[in-house]
């Protein structure tokens, strides 16, 4: 990969779109960003393929890349190990937003997180993608989790109607947890800095 002074190209999960756009609008972040659909999280092999294509294109243009994703497909860490590429630190988008300790504590308590984009798309996630229909939805979620937590990044109004409908359908109480964009910004900046100086492992 050639050395240049351009900032890395960012390939991000659309789960972060509004948050990244807000950081760009505030002047806190100066990156060109391409988004991949967050629903690819449900099809890791397809996410692998889409990222491979995007990274190959960037490599052909001699561009360094920041991947704003969690460890959401089988080869994510292999991508990260390549020269000129790095990734936001965290297992998934929720850990990237919350930070490791808060994420671990809440997961231990049985939390199921909803980022704003998925809160609005909850029917697609639970019914279409996971196939949780009828009584199976409640049985499943109540066995695996204790509550839903909406991560309110403050970019858009809390979608109370969608949250209440999801809570009723899944049989779990819902909480709203206001979160700062600072951990996401710090993670993006660190990955951008690292990608710029990363000559491979």
């Amino acid at each position, binding site marked *: 990969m050639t050395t240049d002074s351009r900032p890395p190209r960012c390939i991000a999960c659309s789960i972060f779109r509004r948050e990244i756009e807000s950081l760009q609008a505030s002047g806190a972040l100066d990156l060109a960003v391409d988004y991949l659909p967050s629903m690819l999280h449900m099809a*890791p*092999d397809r996410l*692998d393929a889409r990222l491979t294509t995007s990274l190959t294109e960037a490599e052909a243009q001699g561009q360094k890349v920041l991947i704003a994703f*969690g*460890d*959401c*497909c*089988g*080869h*994510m*860490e292999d991508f990260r190990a390549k020269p000129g590429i790095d990734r936001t630190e965290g*297992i*998934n988008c929720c850990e990237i937003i919350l930070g490791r300790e808060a994420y*671990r504590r809440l*997961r*231990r308590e049985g939390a199921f997180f909803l980022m704003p984009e998925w809160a609005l798309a909850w029917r697609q996630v639970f019914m279409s993608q*996971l*196939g*949780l*229909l009828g*009584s*199976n939805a409640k*049985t*499943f979620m109540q*066995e*695996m989790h204790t509550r839903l937590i909406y991560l309110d990044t403050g970019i858009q109004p809390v979608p109370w109607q969608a949250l209440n409908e999801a809570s009723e359908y899944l049989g779990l109480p819902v909480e709203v947890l206001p979160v700062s964009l600072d951990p996401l910004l710090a993670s993006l900046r660190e990955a951008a800095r690292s990608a710029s100086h990363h000559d491979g492992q």
Partner: protein
Amino acid sequence: MDRNYSRDLLKAIQKADRAGANAVVDAWAAGRSFHQVIPELLAPTLETFGKLWAQGSGGVSLATGYVASKVAEDVLSRLLLESASREAPALPAKGPVLVGNVEDDFHPLGRKMVAAFLRAAGWEVHDLGVDIGPEQFVDKAEETGARVIGASAMMFTTAKNVEKLREEIDRRGLRGRLQLAVGGAVFKLRPELVEAFGGDGTAASAAEAPALFERLWQQSLTFEPVSGEVRP
């Protein structure tokens, strides 16, 4: 024409219809000994289901896998109740074995399904839960006499922690005697990681875990017992 109960049970599971699946089991059990339901109906049906699941075909989704494991639990619960009243063992005793999600892994579904299928196959399963460190796994194996650990991890990042479990097993001189089964989405996507991270084997679906554990248990028996252990 005789009813094909196995086909009907499979269809109900593929529709994620738990009540419908239990109705098929009830219909099969009418006039038969319920004790035969696992070897004659449930096990062969789950074997077929497991193959479809492993191939990613036949309408298998997260919900259908979950319902299959709940049907296995339902059958086992009934069997245990009936056995208690007859004061006879429900199933031939196998095990003990352990299952748990490795350190930093908080995705319980696959592990819970594996535990359900193992129990329905007669295994004594100790389910340790999520985020289990290597010492916890091996301490519990030594305490219970387990010969197989089933370690679950969904992502590459957490699957790497299987390496720590491998190291702990080896550090205590238990390699071979204590077998390490690994599973989870990333191992299905990247089977080469099973060996790379020190696993002794994997199954392509939770429904195929009983066959894997049987193989690993037999493999374990070929190794010398550890000091003080009384071989069964």
